[in-house]
């Protein structure tokens, strides 16, 4: 079997891990995986999908860079009778156009993080700073929205500063430094919410360099559950992370196998778990388990 996989890019450790896991899964199942990196550009992805169709692959996996704009190429795939499975992000198109989607709910992730914070501060006043993802990217929008929903009921919690850190460590650190400056050397900040772990790791360094204790003076909650954040959790420098599993391909391949075998239609959305990890969840062990996954 030949399956085409259009990946967004390799912009973060998490995505690299997803690529690795997908390739490993394919190898285990004896699938001939055609991989294409779109370098963060939807137009490249659409072109890749078209090439897959022209090449006549058996199925297509795509991790869409953005939700909109897939209708016509998906229609083309449908005409060529090539099933398409979406990985980790959704599209706006009609569900008839793809076989299934495997992913987590980004808004839900944000909500889980928010709810954790509500319970962690336990009614005390809390001024939160937020490190957003890349402006305009769907995780940034949805994780912001989810978090706001999560803390909606708690009047004691307030987001006082929110800036983009572009999902990167460098910018996470840089922006956190200016947050600390702006908020009385960090004394006025009670918690940090970062849209991904990388920014949180950068921010933790900034907090330490400012002479504060991350995890105690400033609570740190973020999303993704990459190995490095477990190290921080183990060291007591971070407080919680919400997992986004990089193994989206496993369920996708399962669904495809069943479909090819006897035409079983999978559910339209296979949701992966958004598990919350805290310092209590054996972070050291989790780190060991993940560190070789290609993050």
């Amino acid at each position, binding site marked *: 079997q030949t399956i*085409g996989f259009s*990946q967004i*890019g*390799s912009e973060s450790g998490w995505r*690299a891990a997803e*690529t690795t896991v997908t390739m490993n899964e394919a190898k285990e199942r004896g699938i001939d*995986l*055609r*991989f*294409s*990196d779109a*370098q*963060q*550009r*939807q*137009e*490249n992805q*659409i*072109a*890749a999908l*078209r*090439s*897959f*169709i*022209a*090449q*006549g692959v058996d199925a297509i996996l795509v991790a869409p860079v*953005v*939700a*909109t*704009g*897939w*209708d*016509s190429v998906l229609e*083309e795939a449908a005409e*060529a009778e090539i099933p398409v499975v979406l990985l980790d992000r959704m599209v*706006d198109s009609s569900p008839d156009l793809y076989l299934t989607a495997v992913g987590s709910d980004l808004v839900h992730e944000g909500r889980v993080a928010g709810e954790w914070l509500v319970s962690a501060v336990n009614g005390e006043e809390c001024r939160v700073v937020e490190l957003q993802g*890349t*402006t*305009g*990217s*769907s995780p940034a*929008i949805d994780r912001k929205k989810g978090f706001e929903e999560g803390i909606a009921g708690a009047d004691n919690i307030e987001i006082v500063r929110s800036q983009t850190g572009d999902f990167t460590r460098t910018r996470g650190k840089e922006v956190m430094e200016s947050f600390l400056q702006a908020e009385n050397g960090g004394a006025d900040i009670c918690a940090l919410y970062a849209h991904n772990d990388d920014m949180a790791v950068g921010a933790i360094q900034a907090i330490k360099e400012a002479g504060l204790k991350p995890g105690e003076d400033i609570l740190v909650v973020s999303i993704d559950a990459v190995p490095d954040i477990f190290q921080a959790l183990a060291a007591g420098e971070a407080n919680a992370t919400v997992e986004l599993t990089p193994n989206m391909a496993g369920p996708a391949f399962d669904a495809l196998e069943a479909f090819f075998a006897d035409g079983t239609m999978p559910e339209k959305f296979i949701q992966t778990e958004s598990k919350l990890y805290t310092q209590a969840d054996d972070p050291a062990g989790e780190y060991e388990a993940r560190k070789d996954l290609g993050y």
Partner: protein
Amino acid sequence: MNIRALPLYATIAIFLLAYLVCYLQFPAMLSTRVIGNLLTDNAYLGIVAVGMTVVIISGGIDLSVGSVIAFSGVFIAVLLRETGLHPLAVFALLLAITTLFGAAMGGMIHLLAMPPFIVTLAGMFLARGAGYMLTIDSVPIDHAFYETMQRAYYLMPGKGRLTLLGGTMVASVILGMILLHRTKFGTNVYALGGGEATARLMGVAVGRTTVLIYAFSGLMAGLAGIVFSVYTSAGYPLATVGVELNAIAAVVIGGTLLTGGSGYMFGTLIGVLTMGLIQTYIVFDGTLSSWWTKIVIGALLLMFILLQKGLLRLRLSH
């Protein structure tokens, strides 16, 4: 034979050769599907490269086009969502805006004697920033007219599609060829590229020409934005990051000198198709990891440019 056209011939030869190599490895590369895709998938790039060619031949550069495409998509999507305007009306409005935007950049370049690189770099920030200010979401476009445009294609034998978008690109290239090679404006563009001071002394209205050049580039970027919005039926402020560099690369592969004054519009079309060919080849191959993809694209770019230089030197020495 015309010496100035040598880079063009070299480009065409290399493109055909490369296509042959691809075909020998993947026979499916010669299917009408791939050919149709090559035109459709690179339509926006081809259109924007038409404008870029004019700019580069005049000795300038326009870094703003990628952002302008993104802005256009967002502008169309938001306007269609918020108002009941017909897409054609929105298109007209958009083209007016992007043309004015280009003209304003051209005006700054001329009046303030600032380098195009910097003015259009600021334009690049501004256009994308303007897109963000309209919306940070990706906004789907849901309009019957868009459906019609997407369905407007001719099905070639072998299921290849000759789409409206691909056609628009070809039409733009032809328009560009006429403009560049058959009008006084076109000759003035070459004159500017040959030397601004000399062109001025020879009576070329340098200011007007500069403004027109960047306005044209803005117009083409707007048109590319429309095509892109049809292509994706959405507007997304983060779209087409770095497309200006692809366009420049396509123009250069097409045999146009970045120093200005020499080049052909048709070469740009070949350049765009060459870029598309590289992309397609990499997808067909399908074994390259993310990083090898980048390295290979860089290497192929280098190879094309060196081959072209080599061929030229060979021809000139005879």
